[in-house]
């Protein structure tokens, strides 16, 4: 079930993408902080070292004189090792006495000098990597008007920065990769368990209330969810069972006295003074109507509970429709109506023959009972998009658009039909049976009259549901 497409659309994929972004960003921030601290420390160290060297040289000049200073600088120039140091000693006239940096305007304190200021000097070799970096320089004015400059390449700081950036790039790449791999592994497992929950809820919606979500036993949040869902399902099952028990109790408790009433009336028949029998017959008919309403109500709630799905099999709608139409055609004819059928061959419906028969009968009885003489009633069976579609249309008065949805309610009766006998449960039962079969019911204008369209699911879908129903 966890196809790549559904994975891309899944919550875990989005979570994973977010994790990768947030992880990447935090790794980048971490590296920037490290970079900043390292570079600052290296620069501070460099400044310190340059300043100390300048201090040492100034001290030397003060204690031993200018000559010693010149010698010391020349000596240092000889034993130069990387990182390379830069020196400049000028006299008061601005002439260079010693050093490897071209003469410049005297400056005081620290300064960062570009490489170009060195390249002007012939002793500087352009291919020396040391010279490719800016230098940190420290200048001091001497008491005799001379100028001393000590400088050092920022080579270390720059290479450190490069190293840090390289590490940063690798770090982010590895983080994102790990987040993706871990997230995918996690997400697929997660998806599989979500799918299990979905499958369970689907089969519960199909009427198999006994189904439960499997728990992995790890005791994680998903397990907790499964446990909670199962507890909720247990509760729903208990409620539904008690609802069913209550309806059964009502049926039993109210139908029993009604049955006795009926028995008594039946027993009294033929034993009353003249004219009494008519009253008794009428009373029996009334009791029968009440009992009939009860049965219809119970039947609808039982159908809605989905208990019937266990007995589903492949049923031929064409057979049902032709049997029912044949049964009702003479009834319609006696009332001056015409019942016509237009049956195309349709794929079988996975369902309950008895209930489908009753549904078709209700649909055909409706216009027969509520339409005047002279109307045409057409029962059609067609295949549309591979799915069976049942249509019952009449040319009678029809139902106003505003009332079309309401007729599916229990006991709802149109103003016009209040005088005709009936419980107002006929279409409620049609709807319940259609829902049980996953079919849609639509009322529309037949211009004139009413058209009821029942669209069954395509047989493939019905077959896919079959294993759930049989379990």
């Amino acid at each position, binding site marked *: 079930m966890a196809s790549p497409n559904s994975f891309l659309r899944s919550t875990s994929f989005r979570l994973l993408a977010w994790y990768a972004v947030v992880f990447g960003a935090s790794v980048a921030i971490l590296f920037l902080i490290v970079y900043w601290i390292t570079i600052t420390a290296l620069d501070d160290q460099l400044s310190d070292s340059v300043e100390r060297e300048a201090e040492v040289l100034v001290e030397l000049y003060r204690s031993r004189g200018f000559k010693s200073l010149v010698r010391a600088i020349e000596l240092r120039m000889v034993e130069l090792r990387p990182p390379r140091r830069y020196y400049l000693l000028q006299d008061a006239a601005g002439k260079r006495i010693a050093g490897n940096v071209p003469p410049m305007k005297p400056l005081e304190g620290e300064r960062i000098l570009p490489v170009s200021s060195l390249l002007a000097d012939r002793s500087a070799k352009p291919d020396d990597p040391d010279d490719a970096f800016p230098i940190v320089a420290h200048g001091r004015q001497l008491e005799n008007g001379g100028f001393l400059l000590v400088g050092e390449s920022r080579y270390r700081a720059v290479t450190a920065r490069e190293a840090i950036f390289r590490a940063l790039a690798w770090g982010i790449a590895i983080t994102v990769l790990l987040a993706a791999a871990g997230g995918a592994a996690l997400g697929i497992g997660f998806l599989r368990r979500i799918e299990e929950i979905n499958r369970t809820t689907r089969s519960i919606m199909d009427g198999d209330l006994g189904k439960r979500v499997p728990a992995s036993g790890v005791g994680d949040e998903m397990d907790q969810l499964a446990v909670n869902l199962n507890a909720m399902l247990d509760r729903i099952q208990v409620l539904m069972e008690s609802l069913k028990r209550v309806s059964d109790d009502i*049926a039993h408790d109210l139908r*029993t006295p009604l049955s006795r009433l*009926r028995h008594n009336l039946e027993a009294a028949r033929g034993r009353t003074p003249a004219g009494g029998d008519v009253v008794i017959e009428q009373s029996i008919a009334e009791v029968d109507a009440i009992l009939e309403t009860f049965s219809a109500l119970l039947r609808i709630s039982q159908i809605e509970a989905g208990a*019937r799905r266990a007995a589903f099999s492949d049923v031929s709608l064409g057979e049902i429709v032709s*049997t029912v139409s044949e049964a009702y055609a003479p009834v319609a004819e*006696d009332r001056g109506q015409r019942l016509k059928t237009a049956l195309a061959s349709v794929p079988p419906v996975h369902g309950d023959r008895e209930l489908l*028969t009753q549904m078709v009968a209700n649909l055909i009885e409706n216009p027969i009972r509520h339409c005047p003489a002279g109307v045409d009633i057409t029962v059609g069976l067609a295949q549309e998009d591979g799915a069976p579609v049942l249509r019952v249309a009449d040319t009678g008065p029809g139902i106003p658009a505003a009332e079309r949805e309401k007729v599916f309610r229990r006991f709802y009766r149109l103003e016009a039909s209040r005088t005709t006998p009936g419980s107002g449960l006929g279409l409620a039962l049609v709807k319940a049976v259609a829902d049980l079969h996953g079919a849609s019911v639509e009322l529309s204008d037949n211009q004139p009259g009413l058209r009821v369209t029942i669209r069954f699911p395509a047989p493939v879908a019905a077959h896919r549901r079959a294993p759930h129903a049989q379990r």
Partner: protein
Amino acid sequence: MRHALLRYLTKTFAACTLTRSAATMGPPMKILLIEDDPHTAAYVANGLREHGHVVDHSASGRDGLFLASAGGYDVMVIDRMLPGLDGLAIVKTIRAAGTRAPVLLLTTLGGVNDRVEGLEAGADDYLTKPFAFAELLARLNALARRPPIVDEATVLRVADLELDRLKRTVTRRGKRIELQPQEFRLLEYLMRNTGQVVTRTMLLEHVWEFHFDPHTSIVETHISRLRAKVDREFGEELIHTVRGSGYSLGVAQ
């Protein structure tokens, strides 16, 4: 006191009128009734006895099972909901023990699955409470007289009416009668139950396989069309209306 007397008088009167009609119902049957509701039990048992049948009544499932196992009944009426041992379990048990007597299950539920469950357990018919007594009686008569001899016959004959089940033809006095398929099935069912009352519900169930109560007069309409074809031209009526019960096919007595 006056009340009791009145009741006695009406009862005797009823018994008289009923025994008269019982004559048309055939020989007496030995019936076992397992029903815990005393009112229903009395209603059923009294009615059956008034029709000349012998009724053994048991109010509990356990006693009922004991009686049923002893055997010797033509037909059994068993309530589905019984204290202790329920009706379905009784039917399953006696069927497992090899008792073949037909069983009619009674239920208050009228539930959508109950009929199928009852038939699967081994019951032969099923009736939802409340029922008209005539309905129960007609069904018991049909059950008790259901030996499969009639099922084997390819040609059914009642007086001068003949129905060939293989050729699917109907003739009366040698004259061919054209019937619609459903009219044929209706006549076939009536002829297979010749001399017995078949109710509207029995016809709906057996001819059309409708297990619900239609709100229009399907049965009446089809019967009247059948009559027009089978009876009208021939002077002698074979299809009779039994008031308050249903129909019966046979030579009038």
